[in-house]
């Protein structure tokens, strides 16, 4: 496919209505699938529209490889755009929707037809070509919108919550479809969503965005296990977030949790924040050697396939997710006394 360039955003500032993007810088590698994850109203759509050139930036620059896009109009940027509700042209058939960009760019008719057919085949929508958008299901419309964006061979593909309006089964199928398309075309993709699963499934790298601020960028694994701030940890559903400090004894690092000191793997010193994922904590009826605290079970609730157990240990409240079978062993003890073990590697530290 086309030789690809990296997309670089430098110090983007933009105010529009209630949204404010604050000093946002980001570099996305050639052919990378980058997911921006953030709650509704975080400014995700605005950022995509800024990359596409629909809104000018207040300050900052956008580069694609060696080309400065900052002051180019959308029609010169070659960004494919797919909106959450697809924004198909309702007065045109599927075929004409897909061919729209080719026609505008004066691609000769025989070649345009060939490319439309190829793209339709790639997305499995050949049988829909003569239909009108309003007669299609959500998933079908989504495929048409993708075909319309991809057929112009965009340098960058921008996806605005592309799966949010679909039912779970269609969503899963399209998620795999997006992955397959990305592998087939190698197009640099920026995908925004508020859905963790979608983000972790698709992303080469992830960015966490909230209130117009890019909080952390990294691989899904890195962000999930090593959030760099309390805000990111909280957004990712980590319930165990505490203020603490790192002390060193005999060359080993410890953090304080309530009245207890826990061994930890960190290079930070002094006051820090710590976060512990609820599924990384182990509950057992017998004490173990490292980082093990005597605890008392407060409440137990079902959460999906797991049990969500609230315990008190060393004067702090901790939330633990355990499989139901494991819970039986300590529930039998009856008096609610358990041991709560936190592996040093499971304790994430970040500057407070």
């Amino acid at each position, binding site marked *: 496919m086309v030789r690809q360039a990296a997309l670089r955003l430098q110090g983007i500032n933009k105010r529009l209505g209630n949204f404010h993007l604050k000093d946002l810088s980001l570099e996305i590698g050639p052919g990378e699938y980058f997911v921006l994850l953030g709650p509704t109203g975080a400014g995700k759509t605005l950022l995509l529209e800024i990359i596409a050139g*629909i809104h000018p930036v207040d300050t900052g620059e956008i580069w694609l490889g060696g080309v400065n896009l900052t002051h180019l109009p959308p029609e010169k940027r070659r960004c494919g755009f797919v909106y959450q509700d697809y924004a198909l042209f309702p007065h045109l058939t599927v075929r004409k929707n897909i061919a729209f960009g080719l026609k505008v760019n004066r691609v000769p008719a025989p070649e345009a037809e060939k490319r439309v057919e190829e793209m339709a085949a790639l997305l499995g929508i050949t049988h829909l070509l003569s239909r009108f958008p309003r007669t299609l299901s959500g998933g079908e419309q989504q495929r048409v919108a993708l075909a319309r964006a991809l057929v112009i061979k965009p340098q960058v593909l*921008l996806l605005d919550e592309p799966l949010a309006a679909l039912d779970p089964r269609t969503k899963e199928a399209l998620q795999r479809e997006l992955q397959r398309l990305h592998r087939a075309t190698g197009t640099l993709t920026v995908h925004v969503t508020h859905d963790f699963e979608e983000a972790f499934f698709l992303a080469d790298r992830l960015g966490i965005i909230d209130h117009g601020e890019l909080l952390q960028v990294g691989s899904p694994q890195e962000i999930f296990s090593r959030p760099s701030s309390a805000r990111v940890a909280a957004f990712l559903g980590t319930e165990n977030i505490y203020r603490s400090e790192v002390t060193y004894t005999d060359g080993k690092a410890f953090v304080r949790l309530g009245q207890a000191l826990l061994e930890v793997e960190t290079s930070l010193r002094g006051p820090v924040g710590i976060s512990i994922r609820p599924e990384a904590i182990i509950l057992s009826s017998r004490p173990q050697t490292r980082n093990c605290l005597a605890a008392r079970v407060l409440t137990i609730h079902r959460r999906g396939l797991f049990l969500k157990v609230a315990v008190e240990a060393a004067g702090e409240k901790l939330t633990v997710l355990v499989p139901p079978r494991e819970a039986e062993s300590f529930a039998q003890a009856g008096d609610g006394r358990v041991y709560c073990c936190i592996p040093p590697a499971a304790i994430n530290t970040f500057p407070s």
Partner: protein
Amino acid sequence: MGKAFKTGNLILLCLLLTFILAAIGTVLVRGLPDLPATFKAPPTLFAARLSLVTSLASTALCLVVAAPVAYALARYRLPGKGLLASALRIPLTLPPIVSGVCLLLLFGTTGFGEALTRLGLRFVFSVPGIIIAQFFVNVPSLLTVLKAAIEAVDVRLEYVARTLGCSPAKAFTGVTLPLVKNGLVAGIILTWSKAMGEFGAVLMLAGATRFKTETLPISLYLNMSTGDLEAVMAVATLLILLSLTSLTIFERLGARLGQPATGEANKA
């Protein structure tokens, strides 16, 4: 109690309907038989022709001006946009005869009017005056219809068109324009039929001179003052038929106009 309420309302509905139909019917009954004959009379023929020409010209002028202005009001972030839109609607709220007075003063007595006259553009007591008067009175309603139609089209359709390679103008003509087609046609018919019937503003600016500025409504007025009742009925009948036809077309297109032009994805 409830029954009396309903009966009362329905009786009034019937009375109102009878009143309207009776008034129009009286004219139609007397005017329809004479229509073919009167239409051969030179004054009526002249008036019909002049009305047709001036109304088409003013409608075209309305369209050329209202379409870009409606787009600006619907799409751009402008400071004080609400106030701006209200100001542009002023002629709609004025009695047409007052609009006529305003135009007469602007084109007759001001330096602007005199400058135009020196350039050979005379609007006072002339055919161009008829067109300007119709334009002034009708442009706000066309503007309102077009603005509503453009606002009903999701702006993101234009955004997508831009990313696919369209200039702003091309995105408008390729995407928005086809989607506002019904609103556009409805607005044009409304404007045209109102122009055919415009009297007050035309009377003030262009005057009422036989075989010069005699449009159909002016002709009706002149015939009335000379007591030619047959001609009055015939012209009135013609104007009524015209209005009924355009009302029907407007309502039909209007019904379809109400349907969302986009954003249907979620309902599919």
